[in-house]
């Protein structure tokens, strides 16, 4: 039988670097927010122990994996899907779709409604993961950009907007 060579999508190195950096930053920010923000803490509490979820692009990434360890702490686990089993995979159908998402030309709900995202895993946990991502985007992005990324910009206390945001940014950069 004749062997067919699988055609792989173009590599787009700059796009890959940009997305890799964004996912690295978001992953570490989730870890930081889980230690600072009560709402994110609560969302992680609702997940089972050792639960992991990923966000990335089909078929070759980049990805980020975040997990909750058996002591209940949320941790950024890097960008390699093969290092651990992933309970919930949120995968954009192509790197291009992920790029549109992370350049805020399309919000997460719009991407989802246009069938750009495949969600593989328990739906209640997927809802929790999306809420965590929304909160983290509000912490990381200026309001005018965050409003493009989420459905509704939340009403938060001044402490959350200032002190908690600063703490999360510092923790994200340091990685704690």
């Amino acid at each position, binding site marked *: 039988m004749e062997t067919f060579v699988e055609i792989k999508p173009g590599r787009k190195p700059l796009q890959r670097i940009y997305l890799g950096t964004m996912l690295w930053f978001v992953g570490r920010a989730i870890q930081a927010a889980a230690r600072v923000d009560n709402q994110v803490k609560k969302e992680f509490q609702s997940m089972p122990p050792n639960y992991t979820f990923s966000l990335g692009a089909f078929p070759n990434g980049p990805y980020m994996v975040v997990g909750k360890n058996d002591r209940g702490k949320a941790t950024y686990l890097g960008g390699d899907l093969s290092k651990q089993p992933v309970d919930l995979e949120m995968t954009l159908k192509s790197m291009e779709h992920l790029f549109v998402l992370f350049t805020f030309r399309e919000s997460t*709900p*719009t991407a*989802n*409604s*246009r*069938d*750009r995202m*495949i*969600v*593989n*895993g328990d*739906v*209640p946990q*997927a*809802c*929790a993961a*999306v*809420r965590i991502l*929304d909160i983290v985007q509000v912490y990381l992005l200026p309001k005018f950009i965050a409003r493009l990324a*989420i*459905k*509704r*910009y939340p*009403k938060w206390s001044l402490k959350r907007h200032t002190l908690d945001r600063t703490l999360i940014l510092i923790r994200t950069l340091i990685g704690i």
Partner: protein
Amino acid sequence: MYIPEYYEFCCRVNMVAGHDALEKIPELLVSMGASNPMVLTDKGVRAAGLVDILITAMADKLCIKTIEDEVPPDSDLKVVNRLAGVYREKGCDAIIAIGGGSVLDTAKGINILVSENSDDLLQFTGAGALKRKLKPLIAIPTTAGTGSEVTIAAVIADHEKNRKMIFGSYFLLPDVAIIDSRMTLTLPVHITAATAMDAMAHAVESFVMLSKNPLSDAHATEAIGLICRHLPRVIQDPQDKEGRLALATAATLAGIAFSNATVGMVHALGHSVGSVCHVPHGTCMAILLPYGLEYNCHKVEERIADLLLPLAGADLYTRTPQKDRAAAAIACIRQLNRDLNQSTGGAHAVCFKDIKDREGNLSVPENSLPQIAQTALGDGTLFYNPEDMDYDDCLRVLQAAWEGIPLNTRTSKESQR
């Protein structure tokens, strides 16, 4: 008309509709290479004599291998496994599912096991696990509401492990859906009202949600028009065959619309009321639908305004100024609920506090609302709702729907700071 930058639409089901559509089944089965079907139903449908109508319609043109009526109201993994064994043992080569959502979901589960020659349904859960066409499946809905004869999903409960398994694949679409007026002719009026409002909720939500597209819109508006024109007539005269066929057609149209455009918060809250308080799905949809529109109105006012045309007709639509059309559309749905309440002698509830069990106790106690709100936050349909919803929003909507008072829309707008 709203045309998104990108959308997908698919409906591969062969629809056969009419007052004597059942008679077509033998011919359809032959065209699919099958001749020994298993008939799957539940005890209620069988007791209502609907299986007898099917058998009479088949006459001597078809050899039904077995009739199984052990499907519970909530589809069950054990039942799927057992009936897959019966299918193999009796040498069946197709399934005719006659009933509501649970019967059809059970049929889809059995079809997965017998087509994949497997005993483990778990390995086919999630989206996209099925890779090839399954054995022939004919769906005959007996309520004009769920639209499950044209949906790609199946939900099967594993009661031992207390979880629900969701299957999603285009291969789960039935090959044929038979819409026959005889199947809904004996449906009691209050169930007719609730199931028709379920179809109405499918159509209306698919028209205003984020995934809407021109093709789903066409199906949705036609479904809404059919329900508005025919539901009051059928409630007055349950033997109205034309009306029954129109409602069944509307339910299928609405099913096609929401399969391709999804639903939103009305279903998220409705699923949760159903799961916490065991209230029939159609009743929840009828009560929550106006609240869902009110909640989202500041985000999708134009879309809701467009609903006035199929809901009320061209006369009222043209007489109503554009700025008042959304409110008028919501008022139309409320009025339809009130009319149904009156014409069913109060059996069609318009708010949650009106729903009572046989002993006269509240089916949805006010103190259950926080649990319902918490459960709704885990429902995937919220992804597609135009406006975001948190716990407080869910509770606020549920409280208003419990009391039967309109939603304070200013609060929704203010939260959008």
